[in-house]
């Protein structure tokens, strides 16, 4: 498939995902134990998309998270971009077709991005945000459980489009 078409399709998927996450699956409405679809999508981009487009989409997704989470100053943009780079550069070394490995990658990506944010919050302790490491672990587990089947389905769709 044409690179531009792929990019635009993934951009539309990004908007769809952020919409679902800010309406039906918002932590305000659905509680804290909800999957972070945006992060799962970034891991997906890191594994399947071409580097430049994926990099831009990862930054864009992070930026949308920043804006919709109370106009934060690039916290999600940078943490998700870092996660994208880490997964992108290491994804060749792990066998992502195994559910367990994939689950672990999603779990570690979640832990990485939130530890990234948590460290910033702790450094700037006057910012007023409350986030515990327990929340992060729970989020990682939920993302892994939901992310593996989603990833598998998205991978199949992606493969069909690539033919």
């Amino acid at each position: 498939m044409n690179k531009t078409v792929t990019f635009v399709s993934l951009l539309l998927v990004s908007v769809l995902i952020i919409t679902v996450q800010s309406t039906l699956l918002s932590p305000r409405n659905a509680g804290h134990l909800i999957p972070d679809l945006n992060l799962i999508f970034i891991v997906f981009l890191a594994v399947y998309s071409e580097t430049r487009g994926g990099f831009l989409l990862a930054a864009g997704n992070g930026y949308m998270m920043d804006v919709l989470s109370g106009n934060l100053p690039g916290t999600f943009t940078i943490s998700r971009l870092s996660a994208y780079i880490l997964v992108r550069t290491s994804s060749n070394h792990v066998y992502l077709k195994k559910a367990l490995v994939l689950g672990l990658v999603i779990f570690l990506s979640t832990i990485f991005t939130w530890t990234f944010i948590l460290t910033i919050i702790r450094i700037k302790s006057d910012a007023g945000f409350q986030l515990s490491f327990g929340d992060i672990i729970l989020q990682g587990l939920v993302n892994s459980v939901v992310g593996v089947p989603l990833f598998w389905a998205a991978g199949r769709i992606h493969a069909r489009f690539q033919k």
Partner: protein
Amino acid sequence: MGFFKRRTILIVLVLFFIAIQLFSLDLRERNSQNPVSKLVLNITYYPQMAVSGVTDKAVSAWRDYIDLMHVNEENKRLREELLALRQEKFESAEIKAQNARLKKLLDFKDVSLYPVVSANVIGASPSILRSQVVIVDKGAADGITEGMPVASYNGIVGRILLASDKSSEVLLITDPVSAVDAYIHRTRARGIVKGVGSGCVMEYIENKSDVSVGDKVISSGKDGFFPKGVIIGTVTDISPSGSFISAGVSPHVDLNSLEEVVIIQKSVNNVVLNE
């Protein structure tokens, strides 16, 4: 790709330090006029409206179904109520007419202090980091600007954090960044109501102040955002905090099931001029 692979750790470290620098910008003083942020809000407006519309319809259909189950007794009760209301309406019209005459007599100007715009909640924060943010379906095109106070018929809800053309973000009073200058209604003891996620806490109340559980907390109007005298919540507990008293405040508005709000078109400049 090769560049990323060779220097992954270095790049991530640089990004981390950039993130710290950006985060060091005072969140309250940040310039919210960034057009890209507004573009993101505009882009997400239509899909959020669509999802919100579908969800509302589904919820409404379910409620209708539940209602139908009790429709017979409800119908009977409503007929009786209707008769009573007709009588009341007649009496009310009489009182209204009398009131209008009296108002004219006293040269009373029946104008509200600030115009208001009603809005529906169409979305909320997508992250667990800052979940005390909701998105409403009114924006700059409806005269909404950053800083305007948001309320419901029950009391203060929050204030506008970012306004795009079609939609706006509302920072709820329960957000840890939120602060409202307030009074204890009964004793006029002053303090600052801050958000703590699940509720609020009123800090910096003078030690000698008279504060009791159950006291109503109202806005003082001195913070430049919220109008004076609007109810915020009720004191639930009191504890000493250094040389001050700290009081837990339960918001009067049920912020977890917020559907409609009212945006008070009171700009920050107006506040400075008027108060």
